[in-house]
Structures are given as C-alpha cells and as structure tokens.
C-alpha cells in the first residue's frame, strides 16, 4: 500500500475515533445528568403529593386516613395504591362518609390498582429521592427485598409497589442493593439517620462493615449517614423525628412515666433502664453529630414494637411555618397534651390525628403515609 493509501486509513481512523468520542461523551453526560437528588427531608418543604395503601377490611387504617386526608391542604395530590378496584371503592366510601360531615368537598384520591396482594403500610415500601439537577421528577428507591417476604404474601406484594407507583405517575423507580424498610431511614436536609434494622440486615450481607454501609447510604441517598446501632429495634420514625434547623426530637420514656393513664399494652409499658438507655443512645448519637436534641414523652411496650409515640407524624412546611400532623391516643389526654406542647414550643402548628385504631399494629400515621414529592 502506498503512502497516500495509509494516510487515508489514518484519516478514517481519526474520524471514527472522533465520532465515537463525541457519542461517548454525550452518553456519559446523559448518564451523569440522570443522577438523582437526595432523599426527601421529613421536615422541610411543602408537600406536593403523597401515597397511601389500602386493602379491603383495613379497618385500622381507614379512620386515620379519614382524619388526615380531611386536614391535608387541598393542593396535595393523594395516590391510593390498592390491590383491586373493590379496595379502592371501599376507601372512597369511607373518605366520603367523613367528608359529608365536613364543609369541604370530598377528597378524591387517585387510584393505582396493582393486582397483587399488599399491606396497608406505605412508608416502608420505598424512599423518595428529589429530582437531580437535570431530572424533571424524582426517583423511588425500593429495598432489595422485603423483610418476611418469604412467608408473608402481602409483604411479597409490597415489594413491587415502588415500580407500580412509579409507572403510574411517571417517575423513575430503582431497586437498591441494600435491604431496608423505608422506615429505617429518617432524613432532614443534611443527614439521614439509619435504624438498627438496616444495619443488621446489610452488614456481612450486602457490604463488609458499617463504614462500607455508610458509604453506600451516602452515595445512594445523597446525605450524611448517622448509624444508630444502639437504638431501639424499631423504625427510626417511631423513636425520633427531624424538626429542622439542626434539631431532632427524640423519644424519652421517662417523661411519660407520670403521665400515662391506665391502658392495656402488650406485656405492659416498658420503662426499664435498658430500654431507656436505647432511647438515650439516639439522643447521644444525634448530639455527637451536631444536632440539638429535644426530648418528647413516649411509651414503649414490653413487646418492643407497640409504642405510644408523638414523633410518628407527617410534617408540612408552607408559608414559613411548619405543621405536624401528630398522632394522638384516646384516653391519654395528659400524654397527648405533653406531646403537643413539645412541638408547639418548637414553633410548630399541631394537628392531632387520632391513631388509636392503628398503633397496636406497630405503627401510626408516619408509617401509613409516604411522601412522594415536596417543594
């Protein structure tokens, strides 16, 4: 081959490489642009949309939805994820029954019918990430696997809800490589608190140790992780809540001791020193991370899962003021008032939501409602 022929080959190679470089750079840029934002803060921003789940006969959840949806500002979009049309119609009829007693028109949640078994607990199914710089909508992150899915058909169905919901509302969904319940993570705009369940389910299973877990959480949720290894063995939202401006509210059983009215709890109230220590460890971890900590009364039960708690609420921030939809309990006027005072002293408007029908199933309002989008 002559010199001219080799030059032509060389020019061809250069053109090919240049074109490939341009295409790869564009692909790379698109992929980078797809980077999601951080996990939604519990306490910052105006709620734009939420998801609830409902299954036929979920009598424990209906009264809470009735009150909460009745109080929620009208501009919040509510998606109701149901296994079938009948469940959605039952939910509608219950919402209507409540709304007929109010002046406001009945709220009409938008139905998302999944066609598979599920529970009525929305919060643990996925975590919502804010849209990234170049995204128009955020991403829902589901766990690698639901705890108990092996023997619990409803829980197995729950595993698919992030995808069902994302498909229906035009958002992205992704499955994390980590095992978690959504309630294992609790975030403000700076940090994400990680409950013991997410630590024990991942260390030596999806990562080598806690520092590796921290790094994965930081990358996936876009916030500084604070691992609560000595916390009560429950979801974070049962024992603490982010309050904004570098403050967290942490449960304190000893504050409830003198206020608890007689109530039947599984195994009785647990005011033991060992349990108290676990709650105190959460306060200590938050303080060590630079947070100001406010304590609030709480009654854990001896079964370790049934709590009378005032942090398991939903926070909405609009027009410069934060509102907490705070769980309250029938027959516990003194405790309810004490919980309300704590939030009011922090400048919150408090909207009480009676959760007497749900708390014996190990969760209350925050566990039933998952916030999809905030401003």
């Amino acid at each position, binding site marked *: 081959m002559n010199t001219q022929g080799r030059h032509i080959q060389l020019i061809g190679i250069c053109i090919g490489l240049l074109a490939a470089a341009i295409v790869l750079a564009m692909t790379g840029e698109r992929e980078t642009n797809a980077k999601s934002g951080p996990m939604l803060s519990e306490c910052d921003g105006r709620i734009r949309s939420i998801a609830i789940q409902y299954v036929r006969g979920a009598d424990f959840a209906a009264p809470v939805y009735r009150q909460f949806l009745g109080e929620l500002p009208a501009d919040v979009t509510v998606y109701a994820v149901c296994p079938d049309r009948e469940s959605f119609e039952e939910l509608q009829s219950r919402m209507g029954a409540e709304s007929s007693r109010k002046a406001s028109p009945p709220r009409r949640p938008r139905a998302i019918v999944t066609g598979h078994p599920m529970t009525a607990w929305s919060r643990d199914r996925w975590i919502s990430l804010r849209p990234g710089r170049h995204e128009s909508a955020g991403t829902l992150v589901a766990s690698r696997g639901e705890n*108990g899915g092996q023997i619990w058909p409803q829980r197995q169905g729950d595993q698919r809800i992030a995808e069902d919901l994302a498909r229906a509302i035009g958002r992205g969904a992704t499955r994390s490589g980590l095992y978690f319940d959504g309630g294992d993570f609790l975030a403000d705009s700076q940090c994400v608190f990680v409950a013991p369940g997410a630590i024990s389910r991942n260390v030596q299973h999806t990562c080598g140790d806690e520092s590796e877990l921290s790094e994965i959480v930081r990358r996936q949720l876009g916030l500084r992780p604070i691992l609560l290894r000595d916390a009560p063995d429950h979801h974070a939202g049962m024992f603490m809540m982010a309050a904004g401006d570098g403050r967290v509210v942490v449960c304190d059983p000893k504050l409830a001791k003198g206020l608890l009215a007689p109530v039947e709890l599984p195994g009785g109230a647990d005011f033991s020193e060992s349990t108290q220590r676990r709650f105190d460890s959460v306060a200590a971890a938050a303080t060590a991370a630079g947070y100001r900590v406010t304590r609030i009364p709480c009654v854990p039960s001896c*079964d370790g899962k049934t709590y009378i708690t005032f942090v398991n609420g939903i926070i909405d921030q609009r027009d410069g003021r934060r509102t907490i939809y705070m769980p309250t309990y029938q027959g516990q006027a003194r405790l309810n008032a004490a919980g309300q005072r704590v939030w009011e002293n922090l400048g919150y408007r408090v909207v009480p939501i009676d959760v007497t029908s749900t708390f014996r199933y190990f969760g209350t309002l925050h566990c039933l409602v998952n916030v999809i989008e905030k401003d």
Partner: protein
Amino acid sequence: MWRSRLITLIVWAAGTFALALACGIPAVSNAVNESGAAGWTTTVLNPRICANGIELTVTTADPATQPSQGAGHESNQVVKFVVRALNLTDRSATGHFTFQMTSVAPTSPIARVMPVPTEIWKDSGTVALDAGQSKTFTFTSPPLAEKRIFTLILAGGDQSIPMLTLSPQKNGAIAVSQ
C-alpha cells in the same frame, strides 16, 4: 480513483467508530450507574464474624444448600450447620462466640412489621486455635416449623451478625438465605 479512496476512508472510519463504541459504552454506563446499587453493594456469600483473631463462617451441611438467595433445602424440618473456625493471626488465639437461633412469624397479615423474634435456642463456646489453624464442627437446628422465619445469629467480640435465615416451605423444603 477518488471514489475508491472515499470508500476506504468511510470503511476505516466506520470500523473504528464501531470498535470504539463497543469498547467504550459499557465503561461509561458502569461509571455512572446511579441506580446501580449492584455496583455499590455486594452479595456476601459466606458472612463471617471475627473475635480476637478467630474468624467463624457458617454454611448448611448439604452442598446444594450453600446460602444463596432462594436456595432450597430438602429436609425433615431440621438443618445441619457446618461452622468453620480459622485463626487469622500468627499466634495462638482464643475467641468466644455465642450462637442463637430466633423464630418469628407475622402476628397479623395486616401488621406493619414482624414482632420481636423469640429465642428458641442458644449456646456459647470458646474456640482455641494455633496460628493459622482451622477447625470445623457441626450442629443441628431444632425442628423448624412452617410459616415461620428462623435466623441463626452469631455473636463474638462486639459484633452480632445474623448469619443465615431459614424459612420452611409447604413442600418440606427449607429455603436458606442470608
């Protein structure tokens, strides 16, 4: 003449372009796999726990039931565990370990979470090994009831790791996972 040169140029450019893309695109995708939990997490096939330089791993006795997601274990509702202890240090070492098996089932299909698991079996022991020495021992689980989840937890030093999760199936098999 000019036409054949143009064709040569196009052929070389297209070939180079295709080759470069084939090599380059996977690298770009992996590098920014945001959802990519798979790129950030791993699947630890044999969880291990270490106390005082002694490392313990646990597997089920049947090779077909190496702990992996969804593996099935034909059994009459008991499982035989193989524990391998290895001294990772260059001197004699002694580690103290506690084995605990817990059992749990949903209290109600509508509950938010499982209740706190109940301890059904517990044992503890000390393993003494020379430098680099390893030792294997076995034990059998108590009978495992259907529709429950059983977890084998090992504690040693300041760690406590749920090593294996077992869930007996209707057909008598026991699914073993981590």
